[in-house]
């Protein structure tokens, strides 16, 4: 039996978690809005390894650097993180260009920037949500 509000809140959180696990075990699907985003099947965290895979980027580690250079991969060292990246596929997307290496390098740089810029921020000037209860 909870004696303080804090304990009561902890018990409610525990029950909610048990309820969620139970629902998952039974195959019940709660409303999408209540699902924890990070547990969604299509959740990819910004800047994560999964995000890099999604973007078709491969990190070139120090140990692989010689090999990468020997294979003439187009490399890009991020000025933000210092990590070096290469494209998973340097061929097919750029075949039609007269100077594929140059385009691939630009493409690689943009992808790394997308990866390393992290979670998008909400612009300062973003308007608030119009809630009729609080008036427009």
């Amino acid at each position: 039996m909870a004696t303080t509000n804090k304990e009561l809140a902890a018990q409610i959180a525990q029950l909610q978690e048990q309820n969620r696990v139970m629902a998952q075990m039974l195959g019940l699907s709660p409303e999408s809005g209540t699902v924890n985003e990070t547990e969604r099947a299509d959740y990819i965290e910004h800047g994560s390894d999964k995000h890099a895979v999604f973007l078709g980027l491969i990190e070139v580690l120090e140990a692989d650097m010689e090999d990468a250079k020997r294979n003439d991969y187009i490399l890009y060292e991020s000025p933000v993180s210092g990590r070096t990246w290469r494209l998973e596929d340097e061929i097919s997307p750029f075949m039609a260009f007269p100077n594929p290496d140059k385009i691939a390098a630009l493409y690689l740089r943009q992808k790394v920037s997308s990866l390393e810029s992290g979670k998008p921020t909400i612009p300062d000037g973003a308007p608030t949500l119009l809630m009729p209860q609080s008036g427009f």
Partner: protein
Amino acid sequence: MRRILQKLNAIHRERMTTAALANPEMKEHYAKRASDGNDMFRMLNEGMDGLSHQFDPAPLQEVMVSADFTYTIQEFVQRLALEGYKMMEFDWTPLVKPDTVPNYLQVYRYQHRGSLDDLELVGEKERPRAGSKGETKRTNQVWRWEKEYDFSHELLVNDDLGYFKDQAMLMGDSARRTLAKYVSRFYTNAVSIARLVALGALYSQNGRLTTARVSEARMAFGQRVDDRGNPMEVEAVYLVYHRGLHDTVMQILQSTQVAELATNAKNVVNFIPIKDPYMTGTAPNLPWYMFADYKRSNVIPFILGRRQGMPGPMILRRRSDIESVTSMLGSGSPVDPIMGDFETGNIVLKVSDVWGTYVDGTEGNLFDYRGAYYSSGTAP
């Protein structure tokens, strides 16, 4: 021309008079030259009038010109009302699914957003487990949006320019513009953006608008799943962008070679551009969004509710409470609306419309976030 010649003649005469005073012995000579100059001016003056060149010894009379009547002639008054500015259009209709509600109360919309369970292997004499079915409930509600304008009787009578003639049309325009801004706010508001950001890299990014980023957005749509984790058929169709990105969008659309993933030749960036004039941003950090087409995929990014019987804005005028009579107790007849009301002569108009949408503290206005993608446009 006449005035110039007249002035030149006067100068010539003045010079001859001065010279005659300085040299009295040559007075006759200078008088002759002054007279010749005068004759020459008369000849030119008459020539301009189409008259024959007959020398008249009579002195030239003072000519009255418009400059002598500064106020009565030279001040010409013309007043004209010019066309107003052309405003930028926002074609928002493909982004929102129209919905009709019966009244001002909240209504509910249900949608299957998760497929049924997969089948399970069942052993001998074993009973299958019960399947389940999920559903999603969304609300919709409409509200009244209005603006009132009042004019004095005198103002409208004095309006000889017709400055207020198109007032009703402008009021209709303001209603349409307000609705366009309202729709723009569906996705630019902080809660809707926060929702997409929280959903991860398949729903948001920071990159500036380039072909590579459009490609990322399209790939992200291609990897979305329903409530049960099954792949969905949903596509990024509409690119909604800040007006500062217009040239960039046109370049992307017109380029024949685009570095799309897993393609190698043709431009496959077949999105439909929509310029949102109400989206804010400071160059070069200009936001852009991609949305699904609800007609193709049933993934509805936004919903716009309208009340039944009220499909568009209405311009309303308060009926005049005046009637014209010939005797105090005789019957009256209606008067022209420009007479306004009995007490003050005011003419009152208002524009009214009814619309609304789904509003939620977590989802923002995103009826279905699976149909939306956001980029802050900050990363180079």
